[in-house]
């Protein structure tokens, strides 16, 4: 078995490798754009980008050939909603847990949000590319993730990012891509105990942002992003914004800190996406109605377990949905009508729906999304259920989450020009029994060894040897 050490891979992440031309030939290739897989097709990557993918694509003479006969080749999985990279181990008992035992090793969990700020929070400083969770997900074909902060005492959780799972120290693909807000039950709880409270809190916050926004200049593409030659507006860090000078006056009766209000200015202006967690049908309609008063909000619904009940209205609003894939239990009173047919029904109604994870597992189990996508395909054979086609299911875990936040031109498919995030699978990736065999991120082949694979090597054979287990490499 090849052993690729993480250290070696870090060194290898330099540009020369990314500039290589690679042709992956002979595999069953799916583009991730909703189309069905194509047998015996070729994928060509160069300079970290997709050149072309399909059955009649020519192999460049200078290309390194990767033989994918008998394998499947797809874009890498994009975790549509997650908290990947924010926690190494979820439950390490900070004192807030009430365990009363101090955690001298430092909490391995950076999702706590009990400080004084809310909307201004930026997940980027918290992301650790060396988390074992990132390696485990990379090893199973997850290449990019939409990473959101968790809401603490406010309905506003802060600003999320898009990361890659590559074995290097530069995980951020797009910083401050969206603001995340809770407007369902969690929002009601945070705002003081009711949805009335959370909605008035929301409106009040946007009012404060509007007031501060009078002083705002154009908050948009920084020079650096423009230099990279791609249309990737990154909201400038509000800490550097001119909104903090004494000239930017605020009313006396404000509730948000200046930083938090400033962070909402780009949301109000429609320059930063607003991901909204709602589950209940009536809550979904309330969020859609917000656009009457705040027409420039770029809303994306997250969760939406009851979305199918109001799918026509969601479709008419052109608001994308990043839905939980398989919720089918009335886990709470905001999910009474949950059904696995939710995603399929929304799709059939014309909703731009993709899949994400917003539950206890969202820090680490994103690799399960492809199994969940396969389950949506299974529904096609269940009477009374509404499933999706294979091509659509793959799109929901690749290109569609990217499109939901305006990055469909960059990641999530094998269309020309996209980042060369490619996975070669042992078989159909929507079957849990398949495994990722090769993972490329930005055209760079990734190491797939993890803490777990090393443990397997050590304990594959138990009988005693001449030295204790700790000496087994």
């Amino acid at each position, binding site marked *: 078995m090849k052993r690729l050490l993480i250290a070696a891979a870090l060194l290898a992440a330099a540009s020369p490798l990314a500039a290589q031309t690679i042709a992956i030939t002979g595999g069953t290739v799916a583009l991730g754009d909703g189309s069905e897989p194509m047998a015996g097709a070729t994928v060509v990557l160069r300079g970290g980008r997709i050149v072309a993918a399909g059955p009649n694509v020519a192999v460049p003479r200078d290309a390194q050939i990767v033989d994918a006969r008998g394998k499947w080749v797809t874009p890498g999985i994009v975790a549509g909603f997650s908290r990947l990279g924010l926690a190494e181990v979820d*439950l390490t008992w900070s004192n807030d847990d009430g365990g009363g035992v101090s955690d001298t090793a430092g909490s391995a969990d950076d999702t706590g949000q009990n400080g004084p700020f809310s909307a201004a929070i930026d997940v980027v400083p918290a992301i650790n590319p060396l988390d074992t969770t990132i390696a485990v997900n990379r090893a199973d074909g997850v290449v990019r993730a939409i990473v959101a902060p968790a809401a603490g005492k406010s309905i506003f959780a802060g600003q999320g990012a898009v990361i890659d799972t590559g074995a290097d120290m530069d995980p951020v693909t797009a910083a401050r891509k969206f603001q995340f807000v809770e407007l369902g039950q969690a929002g009601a709880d945070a705002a003081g105990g009711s949805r009335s409270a959370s909605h008035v809190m929301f409106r009040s916050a946007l009012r404060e942002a509007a007031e501060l926004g009078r002083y705002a200049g154009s908050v948009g593409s920084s020079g650096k992003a423009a230099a990279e030659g791609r249309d990737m507006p990154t909201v400038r860090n509000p800490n550097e914004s001119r909104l903090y000078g004494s000239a930017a006056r605020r009313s006396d009766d404000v509730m948000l800190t200046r930083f938090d209000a400033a962070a909402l200015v780009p949301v109000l202006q429609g320059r930063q996406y607003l991901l909204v967690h709602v589950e209940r049908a009536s809550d979904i309609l309330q969020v859609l109605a917000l656009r009457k008063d705040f027409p420039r909000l770029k809303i994306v619904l997250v969760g939406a377990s009851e979305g199918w009940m109001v799918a026509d209205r969601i479709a008419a609003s052109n608001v994308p949905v990043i839905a939980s894939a*398989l919720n089918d239990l*009335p886990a709470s009173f905001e999910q009474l009508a949950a059904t*696995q047919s939710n995603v399929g029904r929304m799709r059939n109604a014309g909703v731009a729906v993709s899949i994400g994870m917003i539950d206890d597992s969202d820090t*680490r189990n994103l690799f399960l999304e492809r199994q969940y996508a396969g389950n949506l395909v*299974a529904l096609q054979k*269940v009477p009374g259920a509404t499933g999706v086609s294979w091509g659509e299911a793959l799109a929901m875990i690749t290109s569609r989450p990217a499109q939901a936040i305006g990055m469909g031109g960059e990641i999530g498919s094998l269309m020309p020009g996209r980042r060369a995030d490619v996975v070669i699978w042992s078989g159909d990736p929507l079957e849990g029994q398949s495994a990722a065999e090769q993972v490329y991120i930005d055209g760079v082949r990734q190491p797939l060894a993890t803490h777990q694979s090393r443990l397997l090597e050590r304990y594959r054979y*138990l009988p005693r040897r001449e030295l204790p287990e700790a000496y087994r490499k």
Partner: protein
Amino acid sequence: MRSVFVAILAASMLGGCAAKTPPPKAHPIRINEDPYPSTYTRYPGAVTVIRGATVFDGEGGRIERGTVIFGDGLLQAVGDASLASPAGAIEIDGTGKFVTPGIIDVHSHLGDYPSPGTASLQDGNEATGPVRPEVWAEHSVWPQDPGFSRALANGGITTLQVLPGSANLFGGRSVVLKNVHARTVQGMKFPGAPYGLKMACGENPKRVYGNKGGPGTRMGNIAVTRATWLRAQDYKRKWDKYDKNGGDMPGRDLAMDTLRGVLDGKILIHNHCYRADEMAIMIDMSKEFGYKITAFHHAVEAYKIADLLAANNICAAMWADWYGFKMESYDAVKENIPLVHNAGACAIVHSDDANGIQRLNQEAAKALADGIRAGIPGLSEAVAWEWLSRNPAKALGILDRTGSLKVGKMADVVLWNGNPLSGYTRPERVWIDGAEMYDSANPNKRPVSDFELGQPGEGDTK
């Protein structure tokens, strides 16, 4: 079913005029060990033949184009295409489909932590003290939990063990249920199944009680557990003596009753434990006090001590790939289940989750594939089905009655619309004791709990 002992009051003394013999001791009173008996009765079914499907018998056997015949609640014949159908039987064409024993989940909190998850329904952990063997999970089960029907229709679950949570060192008795809707929990209880007792080691008890008088450490966990077994042995001595000799009845203690049942071999231990070193300590403890651990649950590090598990005949109920949510689950490997199986130990796939219970076949499939990729020998789809039916039945003490497609066993059968190790397959029909409890094509054969009546989504395909 444990036989019901009727309380007997002894007739007493008659003094003769001249006799000076001491009055005979009172005969011992037999305690009713089954005061909440199962009232489950199977529903009506017809003699049914499923022909032409691939059959996994649950014990490692695979029959291509097989025939499965059941009637009067029991399996009557299982074999190949040459088996003849009884006259008047319902014939089901299983071509292109698969037939298996129903899946048995040994670790569920359906009913105890039901949907919806309101605070008023959180009944799985009697976290008022770390030693609570006196509570019985069945007294918390809400039979109207919609989770039961999801497990049936999406997961092919025909039997499940509901146990207390793992906040406590001794969590309380578990209960084995038929996945058949009833108005009462007694109406769901698996007839004759032995009781289980939930124990826990590791992080949970010490986290919950660290600030509340302890235990606050792993060593505290062990000390309190051992001290409890000492009390149990003392109780057992008193009651054994009373049972043998009569006399003054000792005081009765519900907690000690349960522990005595374990020491007597009547109640099976299901021990939540993740780490290899902690499982080894629990094994030694079981020997110290003379009881048997039937199964470790979760057992994330079972692969590190698979040889110990095999040598001690202890089952391990595991996940395919859960990891990293606590330090004690940090060292998970995806090949845990097949590694345990390969060592000759009893490997089980469990859920501990109302969503996971709907996909145990898929979890077994992942474990199987990861095992084959790792070069573990002796694996096959038919073997993987042992992890879902035969081994769980063994761990619950009901293997003589269900858990495999053997003649004379309960007709707990699932017809799948494809290979159930594929994520594209779902149950098509499910029979429990030969009664059809689910038919994907028939909306009238889809159970709806009381809670869901009149709610948005009532009767929907979930």
